[in-house]
């Protein structure tokens, strides 16, 4: 039957993905490390899908007759360009024994390393996600400690409502305030991505059985020990679900970074829409979707790997 408490959790929830993991958690704890059918599907199907779609793109890219605009936008260099070979000019596995070319720093390459649109997109996502985790997890922990925990329901409420805040609006406002560019986009993306992680950290720690913490105290554990040995390990599945949700949100929102000169794959799509060129629109969209799916999949793998064995 419909359990009222469950409904409560669900109405709190904004992203159905994190909901599923919270729901699955109690059964997971009872049976040990379970891998459900759904998890298997989610871990196997997306990579196949990505490979198929990306393969289709590569095939089309190599065989179709591209006009000049398409050639410019879909150049492999534009997509994937990187400058590692300029950082390590002599790097060649065959002459590894050769010394580094110069010890004079002024001759070292100091331009951008990863310039392709895909790299830009990944860089935006990864940098923002790291910032999000570094800020949201400690902040979430702080908000569950005594003294500050009165604020926790407020933060959870804001985090739930935050989904409705339009990501474009946030990006554009920051752009008007700070000018465009990579770091403005990173700030916007981190602000947008913080909410799910913060929320799941608070909810995850709060849902740890208080008797377990009590037991820890009975064993003579200090505050810090109960946090690191009991509360955090038990709430990691929930926190990681939040991290994955936020990774997906960030990867998707990074496609809007092109509006503020921060690059990313959105650029192809934007060009496609401006020129009303279907090939560019579809390519841009497909690449963005593939990357988002891939990042989602990485998040799931991360979730599985970080889950403590006991639970």
């Amino acid at each position: 039957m419909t359990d009222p408490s469950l409904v409560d959790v669900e109405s709190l929830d904004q992203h159905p993905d994190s909901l599923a993991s919270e729901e699955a958690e109690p059964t997971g704890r009872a049976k040990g490390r379970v891998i459900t059918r759904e998890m298997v599907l989610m871990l196997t199907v997306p990579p196949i899908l990505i490979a198929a779609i990306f393969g289709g793109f590569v095939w089309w890219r190599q065989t179709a007759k591209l006009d000049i605009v398409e050639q410019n936008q879909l150049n492999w260099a534009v997509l994937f360009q990187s400058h590692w070979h300029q950082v390590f000019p002599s790097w060649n596995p065959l002459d590894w024994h050769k010394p580094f070319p110069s010890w004079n720093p002024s001759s070292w390459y100091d331009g951008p390393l990863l310039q392709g649109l895909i790299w830009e997109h990944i860089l935006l996502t990864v940098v923002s996600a790291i910032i999000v985790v570094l800020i949201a997890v400690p902040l979430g922990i702080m908000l569950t400690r005594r003294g500050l925990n009165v604020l926790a329901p407020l933060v959870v409420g804001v985090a739930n409502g935050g989904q409705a805040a339009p990501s474009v609006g946030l990006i554009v406002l920051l752009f008007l305030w700070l000018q465009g560019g990579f770091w403005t986009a990173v700030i916007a993306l981190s602000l947008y991505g913080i909410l799910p992680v913060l929320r799941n950290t608070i909810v995850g720690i709060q849902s740890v059985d208080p008797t377990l913490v009590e037991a820890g105290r009975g064993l003579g554990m200090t505050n810090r020990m109960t946090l690191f040995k009991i509360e955090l390990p038990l709430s990691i599945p929930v926190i990681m679900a939040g991290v994955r949700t936020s990774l997906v949100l960030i990867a998707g929102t990074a496609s809007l970074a092109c509006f503020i000169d921060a690059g990313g794959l959105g650029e192809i799509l934007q060009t496609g829409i401006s020129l009303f060129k279907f090939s560019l629109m579809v390519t841009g969209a497909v690449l963005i979707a593939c990357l988002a799916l891939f990042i989602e999949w990485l998040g799931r793998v991360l979730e599985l790997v970080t889950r403590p064995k006991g639970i």
Partner: protein
Amino acid sequence: MRDFVKDRWGEILYNALQHANLVFQAVLLATIIAVLLAVIINKFQKLESVANMLSAIGLTIPSFALVGLLLPLTKIGAMTAFICVAFYAALPILRNAVVGFSQVDADLLESAKGMGMSELGILMRVRLPLAWPVIHAGVRTSVQMSMGIAAIAAYVLGPGLGGYIFTAITQAGNENAVRYALVGTIGIIIVALIADLLMLLLGRLTISKGIRA
């Protein structure tokens, strides 16, 4: 800022209503489709995890990318925005509807059958009311999500407040740019808050009294 809003009050209000209207229509269609799909999925247990996977994959696709994929089919305009919003709105509802239906106690269905209720009667009078709190939570989530997606869909001239945000980009440097962006962003948040309150009210009115928390 005050004068700015005052001068354009009628227009802003119109766009806010358009925004709410787009979300309302899209979510309504999404609810109907998702619940019907969930009824079918509920019949075949094996489909459940596949449906969950598909909705997870669907939610992963960024809305801007879906706009790009839809454009060749539906051209620039409100239709693209509508389909885009409805697509994302359907996914959380589908997920919750599947969960909601599967939580209905089999004994209750058994006894309903024993009382001579038809398949449709059981669905309408037993399963749907019992699953409705969960479905309703999904609809509420959908409404919130759709508000932000409708803003992005405004890039292809979808209706609503998102247009102000994109006006702000084209007017960057102009002193009105920030005002446009603020009107768009804050306007959407206000519309979303009001919509959420209405959804709460709808829940109060539609969730069967017997199972209300």
